[in-house]
């Protein structure tokens, strides 16, 4: 077990180190852009996963938080507020929105919650489009540099993943998962479901908002309503499911897989890329319901079973089976 953890730690450090030096080695904007895109989606998928995967509330309105974060940051920044301040404001405003809508939204359960949040995001999308139909431009296009943007995304992504990892190992995390497994039972054991859902929503919204803020900093020009589009909910959600919800690594794998596969298809297959992508996607959902993580888990249990069986055989040879209970 311990050895396993050390290997894991080393692996993580290597990957992070690689990501840190990547832009210094590969001075290639297109690659950096692609990695930024992957990081952005890891951020979104991981933050979605905190509420959707760990707390069991299928949120179809994640775009609302991404959008609000992005809108706030961009508006403030374009209007001359120092960037760092505008940047943090993005996350804060997303949390405020989460707290405002949280209490009524969590009155809804199951499909109602899902479609309710979808409607909410759609509403914001339309309203922002109505109030702010203008295109906005990056205030300092002249000095546009990709590198700081890259590190911003990288840092933010690492913080999100770390937060999620710490969270799910904590008492609150345990409570969140208990709420997912069964709200009635969780409450009867002293857990306030509403409180835990709100905490999960706030954290989820915060990182989605920060992702939006970083997006506002990154994107040279966009319409204010653009980050509210439903694809900002559905893509990350699909990534989380493809990778495996309720795990830390799932959304990461999902995002990498999703973005790279899609880009590869765009670049190589041409006009049929979306048809092929859709088909692959359906096959994954149907035949790997636990996500890509499941492949790994199956592989691992297969391995451990094999070693266990070998050990068992050895044991049998020496001592008689101590308990008669058969359990295969």
């Amino acid at each position, binding site marked *: 077990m311990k050895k396993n953890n050390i290997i894991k730690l080393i692996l993580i450090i290597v990957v992070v180190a690689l990501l840190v030096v990547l832009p210094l080695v590969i001075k*290639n904007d297109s690659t950096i*852009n692609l990695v930024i895109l992957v990081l952005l989606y890891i951020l979104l998928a991981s933050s979605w996963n905190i509420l959707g995967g760990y707390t069991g509330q299928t949120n179809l309105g994640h775009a609302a938080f991404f959008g609000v974060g992005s809108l706030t940051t961009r508006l403030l920044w374009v209007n001359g507020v120092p960037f760092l301040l505008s940047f943090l404001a993005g996350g804060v405003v997303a949390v405020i929105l989460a707290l405002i809508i949280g209490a009524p939204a969590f009155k809804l359960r199951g499909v109602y919650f899902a479609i309710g949040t979808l409607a909410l995001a759609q509403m914001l999308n*339309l309203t922002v489009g*109505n109030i702010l*139909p*203008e295109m906005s431009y990056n205030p300092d296009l002249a000095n546009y540099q990709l590198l700081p943007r890259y590190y911003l995304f990288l840092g933010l992504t690492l913080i999100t993943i770390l937060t999620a990892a710490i969270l799910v190992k904590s008492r609150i995390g345990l409570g969140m998962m208990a709420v997912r497994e069964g709200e009635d039972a969780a409450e009867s054991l002293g857990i306030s479901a509403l409180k835990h859902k709100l905490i999960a929503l706030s954290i989820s919204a915060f990182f989605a908002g920060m992702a939006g803020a970083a997006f506002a900093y990154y*994107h*040279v*020009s966009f319409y204010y309503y653009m980050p509210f589009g439903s694809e900002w909910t559905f893509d990350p959600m699909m990534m989380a499911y493809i990778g495996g919800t309720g795990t830390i690594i799932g959304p990461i794998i999902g995002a990498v897989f999703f973005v790279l596969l899609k880009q590869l298809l*765009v670049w190589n297959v041409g006009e049929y890329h979306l048809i092929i992508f859709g088909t692959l996607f359906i096959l994954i959902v149907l035949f790997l319901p636990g996500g890509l993580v499941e492949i790994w888990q199956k592989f691992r249990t297969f391995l451990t079973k094999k070693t266990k069986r070998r050990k068992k055989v050895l044991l049998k040879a020496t001592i008689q089976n101590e308990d008669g209970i058969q359990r295969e």
Partner: protein
Amino acid sequence: TPAPTPTPVATQAPLETQAPTATEVQYPPAPEYIEIGASIPLTGKFGSLGSQVKVGYDYAIADINADGGVYVAEYGTKIPLRLTAYDDESDPTKAVSNLEKVFTENNVVAYLGGAASGMHAATTAIAEKNKVPYLGVSFAWWNIHQRGYKYLFSPFPKSPDQARDVFKALNELVPTKEERPTNIAIFQEKTDWGNELGGLFKADAGPAGYTVAYYAEYAPGTTDFSTLIMEAQAANADMLLGMPNTPDGIAIVKQAAELGWEPKFIMLVRAPDAATWGEATGTAGDSVTMFAGWHSGENFDGIAEINAKHQTDFSRPADILVGPAYACVQILAAGIEKAGTLDRDAIRDAIAATEMMTVMGNVSFNADGTGNVLNPLVQWQDGKMELVWPADQKTADFVYPIP
């Protein structure tokens, strides 16, 4: 008026004939291709526009390459053009990513644009950041050109041209003042281009002798326009100006007919650009006019060939964005040739100094990158798109008032 061009070189100067005479010059090895990059919405909501644009690019490049390519003085030879175009699914983020990819991997010397204002707005900024000349059509939004961008060029009529010309054309086509419509209803789509054009329509109406009787905004994607139509009717409007997208435009004309509103003149700047407009709207869409930017019936050199090709490929004459897209490549090729190098800034300067005939007529650029181009008025007649103004280009007579 076009900005005075500082370059002394005559536009039509036969560079090809001059270069070979300098025989002894040692040329560096020429690249295999002149790389051009584009991100085009082939799928998603702008898919129909993007596909027309792509056809135009492909035709032009094929034509130029059939001739060996573009002569580049620096290398002393003709080099063929190669376009790397990726689909962006009508998503600006993906478009940006595509442009960065072709920039770094293909080291493109120029970008060609996709389609629709919102997409251009995102991609032109990338061109500016990467300092790559960018030629784009299929957007009339003027404001985008007012951001001081140096690398953006658009040989396409812009909102101010459209607002000015609608009244100019109407006044020319309907000479007797009494017959002209007087009360305008403007349905303004709530987008920044809609805002811009709507405002210009309103501002230009008075001086041209018209009154705006009704002005309303609506959100794009609205399926029901009955409120707007009834209010316009109540305001006695006899002319409709708008800039809806195609589905909204179809809904507007159908619902106007259903509600019995019969304005004398309808101009929907964008909606009827779909080749299927006539079929989709039937009699409701007949006699609706628009500014197409180009029409296959224009009588400039090269159009006949394009139409013939399009006829074989799609069994109809070229769609309206095919010509402007074709012209973009013509302008770019001329710019490269004039620059005599593949240096992007040199090409940019050469394009800025453009003064040439293309399949969309004579093109020159203003300092803001907007083009001085022909702005033809087209009208749907019996399910066909006819060119009705200016008179020297027309393919059919203007039908007025709407029967």
